[in-house]
């Protein structure tokens, strides 16, 4: 529980990992080249829903360089045509009798070159019989809807996957009845569109099975190598100690690299079959069309308030579109992830949330794109609903929030949906943001502009995040408790090698985790090297996603380093011939109380551990910690967005965006700021640009980077950032994690701003993405469209 500045923490160390990347010497999966390596490529369905009548691989086998074509039937013989998902469903590896979404995997071609594999894919002939397509989630439970999953009709006879609910329905309904009679009730329907994390590096692997040793090595774009290893062992029936997963350098994850994809399984099978390494790297079109998407929530939210704007109750119903297989990657006990954080930063007395999930003829997924397990959806709904309440009441959006914030003295705060928030000071964050943008001045400007017919909007988002999954009692991935780990080994000359159970995809762990250890031991981060990603050497961890690395593995790292320091103290006591109680610590050194000249540096103690170790201690100086967090952590922030709308085109120009974030103790402010810039850009994107769109036949309309609109430097605003610091009381260094906060907080700030610009003519909501044509249609409808 640290509140003071610690040596190494809070300093903007330049990143250690940069050295190889700036030289173009990163080692990404597609850089791996092994002797005799083969290439795999996938035959995919052009239909969203169809029976497979026949697969003819003869022409493909005749293509020069093609060695094998694996089909669903081949996998079925080995019991591998279907695999379990992380959400208690099964998913086809290669389609057997039917396909369920466009671009679903149908066959795997293995060839001696990338180009021959592509030619082989072209030559496979598949005969399909199209079936009726279901893409509208709202129609999935209609009596005449096609049954998409006859394979599990015994246990799930319709397209309805699950109903999940939490909260106190009766108390909530009563509060709404009261508000209906004596207060105010607002309702808002909101769609959070399907989007795709689209890291610039797509997914892929190199699978290398060596028959002589029985060892399978897989270089893999994996955010969770250990979990993947265990899953491979269970699914493929291979002994786990003979599976080695290596996540080398990963070019961005954002949740895209958490699921196990058919391509990985096929590459492993192909390597087992051919005895040679097999590389499979998907292209961008495959990535967007078939790998784990995010969002696709149809939300109906209601707030019950008294007539002065004090919120009483929240009621939410959501329809979740999971695509053809429920492969959402979240802790198993929470099928809707952490969606029930949706009471947000506000003191709701009662709340009730229900989620119904359905299948459609679209790719599987749901939890990805920096979402913290559905917190993006949750935060969006509450911030939009609060603004709707503000506009209905004629109250300023900031005032309504300040009035309803959970007060600082209420922490630890138990929400109406049973989360215990660790710490927060929402008022301080919002007031800082307001001050930084001169909020009063902006409102005056808005009034002046409005009088002249100019459309300017100010949007606020005061979000509460929930990350750091999580306490093993409640949080598991495929049954594995969500602890994390760190192993610290100090060499005789006082240099450190540490290994962690999480996996960076750009978050800077080689630097930030070195800083944690450096702070605990009084070293320079230059003397601490951090490794991860190789399951043969790294301690077991659950990986990096949902902003859990700092809260969980960061805690493990601090505690492992403290164990090292504790042992060093024993050695110091021995060498200095005093009791441990007579020793003081300053960064890098133990010294005798009252005789500060008598001391031993950490380097001297490390050397002694190997050369002059107390006879009652084991030699060496290392420790490992597996950390089961006592709670999640709750970063928060307030964002303010200022927009101007072009009345001639509907284009939204973001004039200003101020982001105040609070992630508790900051390990490296430079890294934190970078995470915020990137996260904000991935919050801008869903608000205004990105959408995985489908037509009525299930054809994907945005399956490449021409049509899936990733913001460039021109669309991205000049982000402004600021911080408050409210440490987590239960975390060893008070840190909460930050990576996803900006993506959680930003979209609604932008949408709120655009709606605010039009609130004076009665507009209450516009669904994302805020394409110019959508905004223009509203302008037209309200008589505000000009040239």
């Amino acid at each position, binding site marked *: 529980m640290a509140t003071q500045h610690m040596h190494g923490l809070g300093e903007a160390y330049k990143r250690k990992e940069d050295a190889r990347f700036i030289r173009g010497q990163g080692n990404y999966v597609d850089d791996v080249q092994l002797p005799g390596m083969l290439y795999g490529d996938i035959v995919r369905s052009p239909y969203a829903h169809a029976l497979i009548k026949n697969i003819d691989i003869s022409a493909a086998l005749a293509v020069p360089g093609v060695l094998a074509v694996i089909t669903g039937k081949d996998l079925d013989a080995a019991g591998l045509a279907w695999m379990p998902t992380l959400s208690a469903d099964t998913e086809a590896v290669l389609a057997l009798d039917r396909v369920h979404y466009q671009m679903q995997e149908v066959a795997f071609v293995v060839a001696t070159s990338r180009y021959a594999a592509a*030619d082989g894919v*072209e030559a496979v002939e598949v005969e399909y019989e199209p079936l009726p397509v279901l893409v509208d989630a709202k129609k999935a439970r209609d009596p005449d809807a096609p049954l998409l999953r006859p394979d599990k009709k015994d246990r799930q006879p319709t397209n309805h996957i699950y109903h999940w609910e939490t909260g106190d329905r009766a108390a909530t309904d009563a509060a709404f009845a009261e508000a209906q009679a004596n207060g105010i009730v607002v309702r808002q329907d909101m769609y959070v569109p399907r989007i795709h994390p689209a890291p610039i590096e797509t997914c892929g692997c190199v699978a290398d099975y060596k028959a002589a040793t029985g060892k399978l090595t897989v270089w893999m774009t994996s955010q969770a190598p250990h979990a993947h290893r265990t899953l491979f062992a269970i699914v493929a029936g291979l002994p786990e100690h003979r599976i080695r997963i290596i996540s080398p350098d990963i070019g961005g994850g954002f949740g895209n690299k958490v699921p196990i994809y058919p391509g990985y399984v096929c590459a492993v099978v192909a390597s087992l079959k051919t005895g040679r390494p097999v590389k499979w790297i998907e292209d961008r079109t495959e990535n967007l069309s078939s790998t784990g998407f995010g969002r696709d929530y149809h939300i109906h939210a209601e707030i019950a308030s008294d007539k002065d704007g004090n919120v009483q109750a929240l009621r939410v119903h959501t329809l979740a579109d999971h695509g053809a297989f429920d492969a959402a990657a979240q802790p198993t006990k929470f099928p809707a992830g952490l969606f029930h954080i949706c009471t947000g930063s506000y003191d709701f007395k009662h709340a009730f949330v229900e989620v119904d999930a359905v299948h459609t003829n679209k790719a599987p997924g749901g939890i990805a794109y920096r979402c913290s397990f559905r917190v993006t959806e949750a935060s969006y709904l509450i911030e939009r609903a609060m603004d709707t309440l503000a506009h209905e009441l004629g109250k300023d959006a900031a005032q309504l929030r300040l009035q309803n914030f959970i007060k600082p003295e209420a922490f630890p705060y138990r929400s109406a949906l049973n989360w215990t928030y660790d710490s927060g000071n929402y008022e301080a964050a919002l007031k800082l943001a307001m001050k930084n943008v001169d909020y009063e001045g902006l409102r005056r400007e808005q009034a002046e502009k409005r009088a002249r017919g100019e459309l300017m909007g100010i949007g606020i988002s005061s979000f509460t995040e929930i990350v750091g999954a999580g306490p093993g009692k409640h949080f598991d991935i495929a049954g594995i408790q969500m602890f994390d780990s760190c192993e610290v080994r100090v060499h005789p000359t006082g240099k450190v090698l540490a290994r962690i159970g999480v996996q960076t995809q750009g978050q800077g762990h080689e630097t930030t985790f070195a800083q944690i250890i450096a702070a605990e031991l009084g070293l320079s981060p230059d003397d601490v090297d951090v490794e991860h990603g190789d399951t043969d050497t790294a301690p077991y961890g659950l990986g990096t996603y949902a902003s859990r690395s700092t809260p969980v593995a960061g805690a493990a790292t601090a505690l492992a380093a403290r164990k090292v320091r504790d042992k060093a103290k024993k050695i110091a006591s021995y060498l200095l011939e005093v009791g441990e109680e007579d020793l003081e610590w300053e960064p890098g050194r133990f010294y005798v109380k009252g005789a500060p000249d008598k001391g031993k540096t950490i380097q001297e103690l490390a050397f002694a551990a190997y050369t002059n170790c107390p006879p009652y201690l084991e030699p060496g100086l290392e420790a490992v910690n597996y950390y089961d967090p006592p709670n999640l952590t709750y970063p928060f922030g307030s964002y303010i967005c200022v927009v101007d709308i072009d009345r001639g085109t509907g284009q939204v120009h973001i004039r200003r965006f101020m982001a105040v974030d609070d992630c508790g103790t900051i390990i490296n402010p430079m890294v934190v700021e970078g995470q915020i810039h990137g996260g904000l850009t991935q919050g801008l994107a869903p608000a205004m640009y990105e959408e995985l769109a489908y037509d009525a036949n299930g054809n994907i309309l945005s399956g490449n980077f021409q049509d899936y609109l990733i913001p460039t430097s021109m669309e991205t605003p000049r982000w402004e950032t600021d911080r408050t610091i409210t440490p987590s009381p239960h975390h060893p260094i008070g840190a909460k994690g930050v990576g996803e906060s900006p993506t959680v907080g930003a979209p609604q700030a932008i949408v709120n701003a655009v709606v605010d610009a039009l609130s004076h003519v009665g507009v209450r909501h516009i669904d994302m993405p805020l394409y110019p*044509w959508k905004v223009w249609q509203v302008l037209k409808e309200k008589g505000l469209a000009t*040239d």
Partner: protein
Amino acid sequence: MIPGSFDYVSAQSLPEAIALLGQYGDDAKILAGGHSLIPLLRYRLAAPAVLIDINRIDGLAYMQETDGMLHIGALTREADLDRSPLIRNRYPILYDTARNIADPVVRNWATVGGNLAHADPANDHPATMLALGASVVAEGPAGPRVIPIDEFFTDVTFETTLQPGEILTEIRIPAPTERSGGAYLKLERKVGDYAIAGVAAYVQLDANGLVTSAGIGLTNVGPAPIKARAAEQALLGKPLDEQSIRAAADLAEAASQPTSDTRGPAEYKRAMVHTLCTRALRKAAERAQGGAA
């Protein structure tokens, strides 16, 4: 995304390129900038048996004003247009157009000739050339011929009046008169995208500020690039004031035939033609009267 196989030949001269085109006919495609063609090959949406690379032909990339005409070699790269002081100062409508095409790296290779010959209604130069009253030079086995730009595009997507065996070699644009000005405005969802709609407007005024000549071209709002003739006609003899601009914009909107797609509903695109035409004409007027570039 791996292309299918093809044979490749690099032409060293224009006669050689023409001969090769004659030899291979429909089996061949010209490779110039390649940034429209190569993505098609990677998706295997086009599968020519032969690619004839014309990038090594000398003397097809230039920008020169002579005899009252701007001559642009067909292999001139968009980046060169973007960086040329001649273009920026004397043909700002072309500068507007070039810098809206794709992105700066693509513009290093994309050619003006290719942007026209590919005849994609979503490409940007066609509208501008229609507005400028340009012409193109085509060379084939029978020698060179000049084609006025409004006879170059047909109303069929990806189709031009180039004869088999002909290569576009030059674009010719009349030099500006004393009171002329134009602008190209492109509305796009993000940088690098094709236009939701684009409008090129070019006017010449007499000493009294009345329009003596007007050209209006529309991007990506029909199966082919559109010349908004009625809108042009309506401007003749009028001052470029808000009233005449509105009348022209109404007619330009009426001339557009957009379809609804992920860039927007047809109704929106038509309205954007109106907005962009209005704004392009205002800007053209400013430039014609010697106002800010």
